[in-house]
């Protein structure tokens, strides 16, 4: 696991052009929304002193007036954010393909090739996303409904802490479940990319692999999430010490935010690289094959069906 963790980091670092590209795309989306917001603000602030005052001071009275007098147009702005998010998710189906293609080549694929291969994988990844999102929705629904039912049942009880214990445990279960499903989703992408199999079969195979404890896949996922939390803590700690009153502070704060988001993109590549390394070590440590190499039908069958042989891929 530790070897996969470190090797994944190495591959992720090596894949910095891809990470940079993906971050720039996210920046493009952010810029699109920021531009829409700026247009909206310029319209509703209508040349008032608030256009200048907001630079120094997020005056709550300005926010109150925006909320009350321009709430309808603000909701339209939120709708545009929702549309951007939907588009971004679709684009990232392709980008996930690019990441998987890159890590399968140990980060040695050219950016253009990564994106091209990613596009080839987009249809199967799209179907996988639907399967994975359905699984996450079911998990969320089940945990949420159970927590709601328990909280409701205990609300008439004398102990205040009961509901907090229920909510806390439910949150923990959900987080662990979401981490598990994320790991399954990632492994399913890797398997689907390798075997070109159907989404449901790849997902089921990955689920069995992760749940069976194959090569400590789930602990590796948790370790990677922990790395993400560390990065977030570093970001927050530094952010708390940046004064956002002056030009330098405001610019620095935005720049620091972008550095953090770039690190997040790198982390995403790291996730896949480490998990790919784990799979590769599990079965075929010596012979990585690129996409397009023929996969023996027997191995493909193992990949999609056998819990005993966790990863007979490629």
């Amino acid at each position, binding site marked *: 696991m530790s070897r996969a963790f470190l090797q994944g980091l190495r591959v992720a670092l090596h894949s910095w052009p891809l990470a940079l590209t993906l971050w720039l795309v*996210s*920046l493009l*989306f*952010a*810029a699109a*929304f*920021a531009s829409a*917001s*700026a247009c909206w*603000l*310029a319209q509703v*602030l*209508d*040349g*008032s*002193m*608030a*256009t*200048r005052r*907001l*630079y*120094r001071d*997020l005056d*709550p*009275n*300005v*926010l*109150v*007036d925006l*909320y*009350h*007098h321009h709430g309808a147009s603000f909701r339209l702005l939120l709708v545009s*954010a929702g549309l*951007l*998010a939907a588009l*971004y*998710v679709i684009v*990232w189906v392709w980008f*996930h393909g690019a990441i998987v293609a890159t890590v399968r080549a140990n980060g040695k694929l050219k950016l253009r090739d990564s994106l091209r291969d990613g596009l080839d994988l987009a249809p199967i990844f799209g179907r996988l996303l639907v399967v*994975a*999102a359905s699984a*996450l929705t079911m998990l969320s629904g089940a945990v949420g409904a159970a927590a709601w039912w328990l909280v*409701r049942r205990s609300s*008439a*009880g*004398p*102990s*205040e*802490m009961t*509901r907090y214990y229920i909510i806390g445990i439910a949150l923990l279960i959900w987080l662990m479940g*979401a981490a598990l*499903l*994320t790991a399954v*989703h990632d492994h399913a992408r890797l398997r689907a990319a390798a075997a070109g199999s159907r989404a449901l079969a790849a997902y089921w195979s990955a689920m069995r692999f992760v749940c069976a404890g194959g090569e400590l896949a789930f602990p590796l996922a948790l370790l990677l999430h922990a790395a993400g939390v560390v990065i977030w803590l570093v970001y927050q700690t530094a952010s708390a010490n940046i004064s956002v009153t002056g030009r330098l502070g405001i610019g620095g704060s*935005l720049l620091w*935010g*972008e550095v953090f*988001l770039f690190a*997040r993109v790198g982390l*995403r590549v790291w996730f896949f690289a480490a998990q790919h390394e784990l799979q590769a070590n599990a079965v075929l440590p010596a012979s990585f094959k690129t996409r397009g190499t023929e996969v023996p039908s027997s191995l493909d069958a193992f990949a999609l069906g056998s819990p005993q042989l966790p990863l007979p891929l490629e």
Partner: protein
Amino acid sequence: MCPVALAACLVVFFFALPLSAADPPPLSERVADYHIDARLDPNSRTVTGHEVLRWRNTGRQPATELRFHLYLNAFDNNRTTLMAALPEAVERWAERFPGEWGGIDITSVRIGEQDVSKRFEFIRPDDGNPDDRTVARLSMDAPVRPRESIELEIDFNVRLPRLFMRAGHAAPFFVVAQWFPKLGVFQNGEWNCHQYHATTEFFADFGVYEVSLTVPVDYVLGHTGTVTSERDNGDGTKTVEVRAEDVHDFAWVADPRFQVVDDRIDDVRVRLLMQPNHVSQAARYLSGLRAAMERYGDWFGPYAYPTLTVVDPGPGGAAGGGMEYPMLMTAGTTWWMPRGLRVPEMLAVHEFGHQYWYGMVANNEFEEAWLDEGINSYVEGRIMDEAYGPEASYLDLFGLRLNHLAEARLGYLGAATHDPIARPAHAVLDRESYQSVAYSKTALVLETLDNYLGNDRLRAALRAYFQKWRFRHPTGNDWRTVVEETAGEPLGWFFEQTLDGTGVLDYAVARLDVRELPPLAGRRVVPEASGSRGGEKRYKVEVVVERRGEVRMPVDIAVGFDDGSETRQSWDGRDRWYRIEMTSRQRAEYAIVDPDGRLALDANRLNNSRMRSPGTRGIVRLAGRWGLWVQSALHLVTGF
């Protein structure tokens, strides 16, 4: 003993005797005195009570009947006047707590030896709702003449509802409020005794309450008044005798889990009844209380009672929190309440303020809620801003800030134009409108008046109002009179617009034109009189200010120039617009109406200013931040 010493002792004795023997005069007229024996059964959530009521007719007309509030009957069914106004909330509550209705049953009424129970009948003076039993009438054989008294004995049983609003239980937490047959107020020959509505509070006469409370021995009690004795009954119960003078209601709470935190602020014994998990929040309540008690004492006068009890509601008891009763207030917090969210402090300040306006001044809350809630909200805001900083007194969390002004505007603008402040609470459109006008708009009106008169003059007026009218049930007109007298100027124009009307105050800078004057050209040009000439430019500045609302107030208009100078003019606001034209060597950069923000009631501050060349940095900052937030959210989504 020497004769001189003996003589001195005798002198001291004779002078001291009357001083020590005479009780201080009562603070109030003490119209209705109650002696109540009550026993709580936590298992059945019931209270059985026996009440001896002595009422004195202090009016000039005889009273042929008595009228009682039986407000716990508001929770008797889903069609009472209170419950019918909140159908969705009632439906959720009834579905969640089936069969947990509450109410009060009168089992017997006696005048002397005569049983008059059959004369006791429910009436619906406000809306004729046959399902509402929150007011009852008792007709009498002989009227109670002016200066005469009458004594009644009433037996009653209370079933406490699951807490829906203010009174009830979230067992083992009990809020026993509005729980006994309580007389209305006999004014001008008729009873002022209204039904219990979703938007109304209370009105009753002052008196002395002697209440005997019997509860299980492990229960901790909080109540109006002070304890005179306590005994263990030896049967698993204890009885606590309580006396409260010059109060107009009596409420109590009971919970075996309460942790008692005692403190003293000035000369008042403060008793906090905290839930076990909230003890760490006691310091926050005390911080708010200290801020409030010290300032109320300085600004308006002393708190009249020796004790104050603050109740932290139990789990599921939030509906009983944030309420005021004489010498008793309920608040509310959680163990995780962030420091920057000053809910416990605000509740402590607000509910303590009620001890003055609701408790001691005791206006008719049903008919003029703003006199209590509004004045209280204004003073609360002032105290919060002073004690916790003017920029973020209510909220200072994750970069979000909220001070008194923003908080009041947030409440006001939600339903600004439905009802006038002076409208009785039950006659307003809905609860949102009630809260908007009775709390927030009144606070903003007083802020505006404060800025108009000056803080010292308004504070002196409120002090005079409190000093003159405490324990006397003043009306809104009494308040207006005191303010005008103290301010020394007629303010009818102000009150008519802000208290009696639904108009909005909104000034706006509609136009700011700055044009460089061309050199004067023409047949009879005198070079010195021309516009821009040589290197010296001259500008024509035109500012148009509009009054977009109905409310007219005098207002300042400032025009700022590129050399940093500023010029001001005043406008009486009578017309719909006002134009300023001037010629200047400097170029005007901005125009602002109400540059000092004195018109707190202004409904839209965004249109109060206009710049020649609007800034972009503020927009870029905010839009950039929002962009980053959206980008972060997008990354979260794609992490799956």
